[in-house]
């Protein structure tokens, strides 16, 4: 049997990615440039929060301390979160939000595809469910990146700026450590580094279509998925997301 502690960590990483990105995207609700985009972003956020319930629900089950998905989402502080830094970054303008969504969706669609053949049936089931939704997300975020990148002079400039800002956060999604090694050994999840080639090919094609230039600097920020050090933005996000449980501990619906 796989190392349950490593599996718990892995599931937190999956769940925290979708939770934090879902929350970020939900911040657009009622504020998007046009109604259709508002609805699209809200729906994307909803899918991500739904996927979070599965990942964190399973994490709680694996941990065996009777913590529910809600407990994990609302009763942990910044240092316990295991999401990559990319998803906690502020939304910026609409273009930056969609660029971040595309960079994440592209990774997520490849990752979920691999997880569908996980040796752990519970992981494979969640991945099969989520991957259908993410396929839809990446189609839209990719189209929007192309539309705005290859759009007006202003939209192109903003999309290039968004890519330049976000690109140094992409590398963390392909980092690996002893948790990943344990997952690979148990056949539960792939080595993150093994997704890079497919990712670069796919993302490169879309960004090329969008007339955008991928930065050549290979430096990348890290510390989110290991919990070593998040950006200052995560704490601010949590004060908003966890406000109710912080103000009224134990409140139930």
């Amino acid at each position, binding site marked *: 049997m796989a190392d349950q502690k490593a599996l718990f960590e892995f599931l937190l990483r999956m769940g925290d990615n979708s939770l934090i990105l879902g929350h970020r995207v939900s911040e657009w609700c009622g504020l998007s440039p046009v109604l259709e985009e508002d609805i699209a972003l809200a729906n994307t956020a909803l899918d991500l929060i739904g996927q979070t319930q599965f990942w964190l629900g399973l994490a709680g089950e694996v941990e065996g301390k009777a913590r529910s998905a809600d407990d994990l989402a609302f009763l942990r502080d910044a240092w316990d979160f295991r999401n990559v830094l990319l998803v906690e970054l502020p939304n910026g303008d609409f273009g930056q939000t969609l660029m971040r969504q595309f960079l994440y969706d592209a990774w997520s669609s490849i990752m979920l595809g691999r997880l569908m053949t996980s040796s752990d049936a519970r992981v494979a089931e969640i991945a099969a469910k989520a991957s*259908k939704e993410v396929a839809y997300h990446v189609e839209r975020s990719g189209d929007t990146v192309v539309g705005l990148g290859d759009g007006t002079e202003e939209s192109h400039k903003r999309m290039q700026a968004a890519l330049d800002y976000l690109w140094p956060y992409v590398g963390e999604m392909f980092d690996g450590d002893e948790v990943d090694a344990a997952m690979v050994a148990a056949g539960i999840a792939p080595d993150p580094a093994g997704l890079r080639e497919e990712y670069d090919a796919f993302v490169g094609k879309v960004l090329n279509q969008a007339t955008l230039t991928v930065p050549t600097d290979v430096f990348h920020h890290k510390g989110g998925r290991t919990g070593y050090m998040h950006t200052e933005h995560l704490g601010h996000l949590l004060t908003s997301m966890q406000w109710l449980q912080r103000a009224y501990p134990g409140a139930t619906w």
Partner: protein
Amino acid sequence: MDQPTVDTIWDWLDQVPDPEIPVISLVDLGIIRDVRWEGDMLNVAVTPTYSGCPATSIINIDIETALRDRGIEKLTLTQQLSPPWTTDWLTEKGKAKLEEYGIAPPSPKGEPDRCPNCGGHDLERTSQFGSTPCKALWRCRDCLEPFDYFKCI
């Protein structure tokens, strides 16, 4: 009372409307995956349409209420994720009712066959997403009416 047959239970569930699109039943929607008796315990397996669909918890309450009202006392609802829900599971009856209601039913080609209002074929997509996770927004250039399309997944 005598234990109702599984077929009877399916009939009862076919009378429970979807909370968001009440013209179709939960059975029409294809989310009831299994109904079985285990001794005197009735088990109903339900699969979510979309992971984050807010109607999921309401659906569970509606199933439970409908069955308890008909005298089922021992009942468990299980969430079944695999295989994931697909619009292929919508019944033909359900698809016809959707169209009658003004929602274009899912089509294997990935876009609506015709305008549910006028039957026109000159259609355009306004958004990949719509008022609920399962729908997208379209518009008919013949009658100029917007309409919902039940997304194909």
